[in-house]
């Protein structure tokens, strides 16, 4: 299985899939869920990351989301982007169908 999270990662965010339609979502600082990575809360360091992941629990218990996990964020040209190819594809949509997914819905920014 592809590597979902990097234990050495310093900067991370929390993602999941929405139960009702499977759409990729990100946990915000207010403990809400957004379809855009730009809205995601960023945790620096292990403790902050664990605390952030714990904030996913209410939605998990309410059966609103599926499989929340931490993933690594990197800085590229001054913006925060997912470090792995996998998470970049989840954030945007299939690289071979630019007309589909968040990239087509203006939800990548």
């Amino acid at each position, binding site marked *: 299985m592809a590597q979902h999270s990097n234990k050495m990662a310093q900067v991370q965010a929390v993602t999941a899939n929405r139960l009702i*339609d499977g759409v990729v979502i990100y946990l915000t600082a207010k403990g809400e869920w957004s379809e855009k990575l730009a809205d995601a809360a960023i945790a620096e360091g292990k403790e902050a990351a664990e605390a952030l992941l714990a904030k996913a629990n209410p939605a998990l218990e309410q059966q609103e989301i599926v499989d929340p996990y931490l993933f690594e964020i990197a800085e590229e040209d001054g913006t925060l982007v997912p470090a792995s190819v996998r998470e970049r594809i*989840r954030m945007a949509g299939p690289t071979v169908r630019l007309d589909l997914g968040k990239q087509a819905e203006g939800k990548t920014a």
Partner: protein
Amino acid sequence: MYRYDEFDHALVQDRVKQFSGQVQRRLTGEITEDEFKPLRLMNGVYLQLHAYMLRVAVPYGTLSSRQMRMLAHIARKYDKGYGHFTTRQNIQYNWPALKDIPAILEDLASVEMHALQTSGNCIRNVTSDQYAGVAANEVEDPRIWSEIIRQWSTLHPEFSFLPRKFKFAVTGAPEDRAAIRVHDIGIELVKGEDGQTAFDIYVGGGQGRTPMIGKLIGKAISQENLLTYLEAIMRVYNMHGRRDHLFKSRIKILVHTIGEEEMRRQVEEEFAAMQKDGPVELPKAEIERIQAYFAAPAYETLENDPDELNAAFEKTPAFARWVKQNVAAHKVPGYAIANISLKPVGGVAGDASAEQMEKVAELADAYSFSEIRVTHEQNLVLADVPQKDLFALWQELDANGLGTPNLGLITDQIVCPGLDYCNLANARSIPIGQAIAKKFEDLDRQNDIGELKIKISGCINACGHHHVGHIGILGVDKKGTEFYQVSLGGSADEKTSLGDITGPAFTEDKIVGAVENIVETYLSERQNGERFLDTYRRIGMKPFKEKLYAAH
């Protein structure tokens, strides 16, 4: 083709109702994901990178035009206007919402379709030869026996919780177009001593992490004994398959561990035990009942090579090229088998839009007795086209992006969804396939290279059949970067072989160049009439390896 009887209808309707209730309880939070996951998987529902994915069964790859229209309707109404045909001759939808899946299953049931056993540790969709019933030298239509196996294995309580998933493939012809030797059980129809159809049964083939070629365990098993013999194999596997270790849980590991002889001995012992209270035989009347569904359609009396066909060849070279590459001989004079490539350059292997599905349904109605086949190489087939109608058919196909004349050529690749869609993938497959297709786009060059099957998987699970590609490509992840490992000399036909790894993997930037190097080496080494595979088998890895890694 087979039509549901009252039992089939009741069974599918019951399941739609049951799963609709389960989805409802999941959406209202009554059941957790851990409780729901095994239930959704039993109904073909996965959770992938961007959304849920629904895999719909197409038994032995045969579809009616009515079913194809429904697949188009589902693509348009509940998905994003397309579907993906798979190496199990099924179709996958990449974007359905969980809330819509009960409605999709209702729609499917209305045309005698479902998503049962397209996932989970059970017997999966039985696959077969896309030329079933129309190949000149087949023993019998393998779909008769595929259907009998489908009925036997559907919701079979003893085989609903196997150590791991289990795949059957059946061929009726000596030319293996169904890759039977890389299946858990592969069945070849043969003539028994009494002249009746009998079955050679290969067990323990497979790809994935540990590729193996199936061993001939049962020789010329009779029709009456087929299901009992298969049941004996399943029982041995169910008893001794490694439930404790995911990577060792397929039957191929059991056969490899205990050996071919011991496997045969255990199967025969079990088979004998099942008969101790009298023979357990498949009734003749039941065989005949199923055979009747696959009776030949009402062929007209036609001549081979009609004048209008030859005239069209002269007038339209592009049509002649398509016929030469994509049309195969039919057993009935005046008819032809038309292959519809789902591999246009720039496209995604196996994908078809709702409009294309509807067009194929329309063409099947007009020219091929309203029937369509899906191939394990991710193409479609109209199996019964009058030769005199080929030109009209081609014009329609060509106008709808379905006329690519590349069957069996370097751009006709098997490509798994890879990291663009799949939750298990380590690397992307589709862009690699597209880049190779682009590089070899020129049809004259493709034709000069000749038969060359590239198969690409985005992870070790080998959904893209890379182990049996003439050139196999496996995507791997190295510290977050995609790399591609290359193997040569695999084949999934009657002379099945597993590919040999060339050496260190290539980056995304280098993989197309590597394939080009391999092709150039073949072209410089080939002798009269040799295909890539023939040259590789004659000269071996060394010259390819020297060229590939010369700069390193």
